């Protein structure tokens, strides 16, 4: 009963507030209509009135126009994915998808009937290049078509795992003839996984947060396996094969970054300019702790400068860097050049503020990480720069808590 009364009062106050805000009634009229709620209404009106008077700082039209230009530059093209308008487009797409999936089911069923259900079952162990491999991917598609988003996400993760297991099997046999099919399949599933995660993120951040750690663990396991295989075959395999596997590893890294940082890749990935020398020994990293790496590897703060309109960041390492390095900001890769201990990265187009990671090109190991602000000042991991003075504040709350949780820990 009490709750009913409360609900009724809540409704009256809400309606009065809306009526006053929209100028349909005056405060006095409401007070006259509901004298028993006078005090409640007075508080509501006062709070409403005063809070309405608070205004946000004004943005100048120039600043807004600047921000708009920046945004427009960053927006990915979507012309191809969404084309001819039709009011029934989405419905039609769903129907098409459903029919496509139905077709897959029909084909799978026919295969099962003709060859026995054993064929579908046997396809579980099929490898790229095998006759039953397409059946295996069809079955995966069928599973995806029948499940909701959250389950789909787990399936995508599972299917990337399938591709990695297939890679292990191919590596055991030393048979890499169909590596393109495998890497392409991995990239496809990983891309769909990242996109689906972004969709879940937009709709339900809580759910996304729950899924993120689990995904990261699984993807890390996959990265270790791929790295292990790259290492094992590095002396015997030809360069194109190594490149394909490195591409697969890079897809894994990108996917993890996209999932962890919740950043959408908005354009094509820029390939690093350095040509990796596969025979080079990766830089020895004494620990996975980025803070330790930062303190021991980069001698001073990066220098930021403009060169022919390009935004360059220059890092001076404590030792000569002999291997390829690339920079990553917000899920995008940027090329870096190396001159002895000096690494110069072209970061044109990066957002004003963000986290910058430097990776070893061969192994994707994290070399260095920092938060940057090329509009204002640098905020270093483990080091806080203020007014040009570098203060060591290791372990302090300002030392970049969580800024190295982008999935590179324990990657070796």
């Amino acid at each position, binding site marked *: 009963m009490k709750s009913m009364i*409360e*609900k009724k*009062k*809540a*409704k009256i*106050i*809400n309606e009065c*507030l*809306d009526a006053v*805000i929209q100028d349909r009634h005056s405060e006095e009229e409401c*007070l006259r209509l509901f004298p028993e709620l*006078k*005090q*409640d209404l007075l*508080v*509501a009106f*006062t*709070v*409403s009135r*005063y*809070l*309405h*008077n*608070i*205004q*946000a*700082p004004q943005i100048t039209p120039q600043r*807004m126009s600047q*921000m*708009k230009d*920046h*945004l427009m530059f*960053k*927006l*990915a093209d*979507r*012309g*191809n*994915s*969404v*084309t001819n*308008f039709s009011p029934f487009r*989405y419905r039609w797409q769903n129907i098409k998808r459903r029919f496509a999936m139905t077709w897959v089911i029909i084909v799978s069923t026919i295969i099962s009937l003709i060859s026995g259900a054993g064929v579908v079952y046997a396809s579980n162990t099929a490898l790229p290049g095998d006759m039953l491999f397409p059946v295996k991917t069809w079955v995966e598609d069928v599973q995806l078509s029948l499940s909701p988003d959250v389950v789909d996400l787990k399936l995508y993760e599972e299917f990337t795992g399938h591709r990695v297991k297939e890679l292990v099997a191919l590596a055991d046999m030393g048979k890499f003839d169909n590596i393109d099919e495998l890497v392409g399949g991995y990239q496809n599933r990983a891309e769909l996984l990242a996109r689906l995660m*972004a*969709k879940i*993120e*937009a*709709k*339900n*951040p809580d759910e*996304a*947060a729950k899924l993120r750690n689990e995904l990261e663990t699984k993807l890390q396991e996959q990265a270790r396996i791929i790295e292990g295989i790259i290492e094992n075959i590095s002396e015997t395999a030809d360069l194109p094969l190594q490149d394909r596997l490195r591409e697969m590893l890079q897809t894994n890294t990108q996917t993890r970054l996209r999932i962890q940082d*919740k950043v*959408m890749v908005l354009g094509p990935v820029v390939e690093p300019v350095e040509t990796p020398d596969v025979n080079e020994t990766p830089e020895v990293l004494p620990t996975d702790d980025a803070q330790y790496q930062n303190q021991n590897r980069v001698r001073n703060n990066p220098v930021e400068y403009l060169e022919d309109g390009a935004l360059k960041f220059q890092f001076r390492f404590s030792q000569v860097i002999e291997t390829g390095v690339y920079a990553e900001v917000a899920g995008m890769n940027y090329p870096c050049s190396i001159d002895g201990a000096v690494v110069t990265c072209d970061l044109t187009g990066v*957002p*004003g*503020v963000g986290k910058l990671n430097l990776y070893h090109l061969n192994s994707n190991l994290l070399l260095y990480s920092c938060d940057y602000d090329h*509009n*204002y000042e640098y905020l270093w991991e483990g080091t806080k720069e203020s007014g040009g003075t570098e203060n060591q504040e290791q372990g302090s709350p300002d030392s970049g808590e*969580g800024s190295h949780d982008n999935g590179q820990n324990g990657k070796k």
Partner: protein
Amino acid sequence: MKIRMQDADLSNDEPRIIQKAIEGEKQAFGLLYEKYFNAILRYLFFKLSSLEEAEDMTENVFIKAWESLPSFNQFEKGLNFRAWIYRIAHNTLVDFHRAHKKDLSIDAIGELPASTIKPEKANEQRETVIEITRAIRQLDEISIQIIMNRFIAGMDHKETALIMGLSEGNVRLIQFRALKKLKEILGEIND
């Protein structure tokens, strides 16, 4: 046929402009950006208390909106564009605060800079605003969000409910209880 953006009247033609943006026309999306930029910035500013952060997050919100636009009609039945983009802003904000382990909005509302009060009303109102915002800080997080959405962002209770994933009745009730608590904190108000 491409829409001539210079001729587009956003207030009357918003559904068509949204549709063009869904189809990938950045120019159309630019019009939506211009219309909703200030509202989203204001909404975020009062929950972040930093203009720079609010600007960055506003950009992220519009990028997410652009990426998610193709699913706007399909999955977001019952939401108008304004409520939809506010919801993206809300989700982005929740995520940001979770990542930075901050309490949503409490710092922001309690330390409003004097510049945020309209100059002509500054003297007479500043004290009251500060008193009210201090009182609001004593509320729980959901109540603060509802009060801010309703009275600072200027959303109606339906939009607030949609954005926060609550029922309208719930929003009304939480708002009522929050106002009741504010009444206790602020004491009796004379008309």
